[in-house]
């Protein structure tokens, strides 16, 4: 059983309510932070902890906080990014649904560290019932003096507002989120200026993921150095992984980033193996936008080493033979899954969610979807594969926000690792409509040059 810092109390009955949460040691970090620490020392503690943003990019949180501009007389804001829309990722939902006070606790401490008095939770529109849970938790916290004016008699004021989005994936991008929060169309802004200088209403703003902010609580409680001892290398602390797909036990798991991918998939403590005793074919380890990996490259790196569930190990080999931990949306595909169909599904999603602001993403995502649709339905040609490759290459890196990259990577990885499946689809237009390419060689051990 690994270390649990966030979900250790998740199974306590009635933990969602304030009474039980407080009895189980909740809000201790707020007491410690506001009474014994000052904003600088909290930022220092977070830097020491080595916490990395849990929203996908993995940028060190302490460093992000230290970038915030502090002009005289201008309010600063903290925004919690709860617009969890990445297909395959549902860890924040679990956290907010069952431990709403943990998020609030993290938010109060973080607001204090950043000097933010008005803090926003931007929650995706589809999480309507969680909005209610959060609102209720905020009311409870307010009634018990954890929010509002003069918290714990320290003179610190903190208000938390929940803002419901309208269900757009693009609003998970921090500048689009800010635009949407301001009441505008959710188009990503052109950076610079970064939100740390000009964010919500042109004021310095930090946008953090739900899990990142929740992780602030154990960091304050146990100290940054202790937190950094958990995990390995630059992947410190614990990470929530939302596992789904063809596995026996889909769900949200908290891991300490030292376990191997193989253990995570096959151990009964976590995913519990592939459903129906089938073979593992491929896996998208970090939410839909990270590159898909075939079974052999997923369990072992290209140099033959065991792959672990952490930032460094999963991205070992770059995009040629590796992937990313991303936001922790772990999607497992068994031998009966068709990679072409899977790629088409993802491409359709990105086409639908592109904001349409910059041309490569707006036009490219639609084009890729149409070509993939053609291949999937047996009308493709071999030249289409090269065309897809060329399109994704011209989208990646040339767009305003990372949605273009997120749309290009899955297609690129699918072609890179599963080109023969695409070719089979094209060469067998009739057969591919009724049967499947199957596992083929995707689980065979790869040759490691000495």
């Amino acid at each position, binding site marked *: 059983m690994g270390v649990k810092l966030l979900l250790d109390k998740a199974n306590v009955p009635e933990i969602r309510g304030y009474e039980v949460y407080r009895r189980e040691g909740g809000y201790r970090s707020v007491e410690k932070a506001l009474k014994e620490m000052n904003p600088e020392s909290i930022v220092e503690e977070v830097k020491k902890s080595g916490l990395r943003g849990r929203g996908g990019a993995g940028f060190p949180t302490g460093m992000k906080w230290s970038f915030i501009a502090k002009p005289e007389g201008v309010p600063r804001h903290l925004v919690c990014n709860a617009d969890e829309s990445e297909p395959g990722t549902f860890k924040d939902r679990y956290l907010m649904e069952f431990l709403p006070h943990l998020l609030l606790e993290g938010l109060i401490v973080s607001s204090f560290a950043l000097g933010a008095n008005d803090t926003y939770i931007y929650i995706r529109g589809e999480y309507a019932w969680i909005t209610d849970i959060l609102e209720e938790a905020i009311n409870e916290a307010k009634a018990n003096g954890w929010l509002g004016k003069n918290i714990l008699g320290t003179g610190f004021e903190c208000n938390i507002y929940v803002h419901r989005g309208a269900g*757009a994936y693009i609003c998970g991008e921090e500048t689009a989120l800010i635009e949407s929060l301001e009441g505008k169309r959710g188009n990503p802004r052109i950076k610079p200026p970064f939100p740390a200088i000009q964010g919500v209403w042109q004021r310095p703003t930090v946008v953090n993921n739900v899990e990142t902010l929740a992780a602030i609580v154990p960091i304050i409680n146990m100290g940054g150095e202790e937190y950094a001892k958990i995990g390995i290398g630059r992947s410190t602390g614990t990470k929530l992984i939302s596992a789904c797909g063809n596995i026996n036990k889909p769900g949200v798991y908290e891991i300490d980033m030292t376990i191997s991918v193989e253990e995570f998939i096959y151990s009964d403590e976590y995913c519990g193996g592939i459903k129906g005793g089938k073979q593992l074919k491929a896996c998208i380890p970090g939410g839909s936008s990270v590159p898909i990996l075939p079974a052999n490259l997923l369990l072992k790196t290209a140099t033959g080493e065991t792959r672990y569930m952490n930032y460094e190990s999963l991205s070992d080999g770059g995009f040629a033979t590796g992937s990313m931990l991303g936001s922790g949306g772990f999607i497992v595909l068994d031998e009966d899954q068709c990679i072409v169909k899977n790629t088409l599904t993802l491409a359709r999603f990105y086409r639908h*969610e592109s904001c349409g602001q*910059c041309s490569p993403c707006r036009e490219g995502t639609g*084009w890729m979807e149409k070509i993939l649709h053609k291949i999937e339905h047996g009308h493709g040609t071999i030249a289409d594969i090269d065309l897809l490759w060329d399109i994704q290459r011209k*989208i990646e890196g040339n767009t305003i926000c990372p949605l273009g990259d997120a749309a290009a990577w899955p297609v690129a990885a699918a072609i890179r690792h599963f080109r023969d499946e695409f070719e089979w689809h094209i060469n067998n237009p009739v057969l591919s409509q009724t049967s499947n390419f199957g596992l083929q060689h995707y689980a065979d051990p790869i040759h490691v040059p000495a």
Partner: protein
Amino acid sequence: MSEQNLFKVTIDNITIDVPAGTTVLQAARLIGGQVAPPAMCFYSKLEGSGGKCRTCLVEVSKGSEKDPRPMPKLVASCRTTVMDGMEVKNITSEKVLDARAGVVEFLLLNHPLDCPICDQAGECHLQDLSFEHGKAETRYEFQRRTFEKHDLGKNIQLHMTRCILCYRCVFTADQLTNKRVHGILDRGDHAEIATHIEKSLDNEFIGNVIDVCPVGALTDKTFRFKNRVWFLKPMDAHRDCPTCSGRVTLWNRGDEVYRVTARKDQWGEIEDTPDGKPGWICNTCRFDKKATSDWTIEGPREISRQSVIAQGHYAGNIGTTKPNETFKAVNDGRTPHLLMDIHDESEVNQPNIHLGQIQGPSHGDTFNTNNTHKA
């Protein structure tokens, strides 16, 4: 400008000193020529424009004197400000040309190739861009996105099928006029410029959206299908207008004023008036004053843009001279063997008839061999 505020920036190996805060694109425009990246969405007179079309991507091979690291990605030159000692590669970078070709292909994916019937043809930025950076054939084999045409008031027509979503008109409507009723609906490749539920745009300055449109999506209904721009003769003119500066370009044929636009510079942007304000013109000047007698004509307008409209007007005056590299010159005095001389077959466009000297619209009669109307 003091010495400290000047930044040295090198674009395609040409160094120039520009004031701090200048964007890479504007610095490149100061150098001019091919060094200036194309821009479809950036419009210097509109606040917040730019960064969207991605045609102006450049490679920053050296960030600045202090931080010489190159930027990891190509950046939009219209929204990147220069740093002291910055080195930028535009047409000298393979990466940039490749990405730009990609962007042009993306922009043309859903753009109808209806240039032969489009009013913008000849002065269209997308036409110029695809001529310079595009390919002759398309790799797109699917149905293009189409929209119904909409009338935005009695004088402007919106044809979304041609739109490249540069947002220029949205910024114009937002910044020049008081009431905002004009924006983007939907998202992705089905996004469209729209007024909320078929509203008309009625504002004294709304006609300027036609001038800022880089393609033929917004057209002047008083000019639609009346004439091709290259047959018209641009004239600088002004009138005493109570609402705007009244400084315009008239597009004439013979004595007839076919259309009125604001004066545009070589980047296709509206010129400033002598007092330094952008020379937006009002709807009355643009749509209603269509008689020569309404205007005081200053003289021929020099079109300095590299485009079809720059061809053939007032030869000599604007540097469009007869090329020296004739067939005879490059073929060591030999004349080419023509399979067919078009003038033997057709009576139209005979070399002895000077188009510039024809008064009014030309007809078949003008070119009849029996006609005495010859130079």
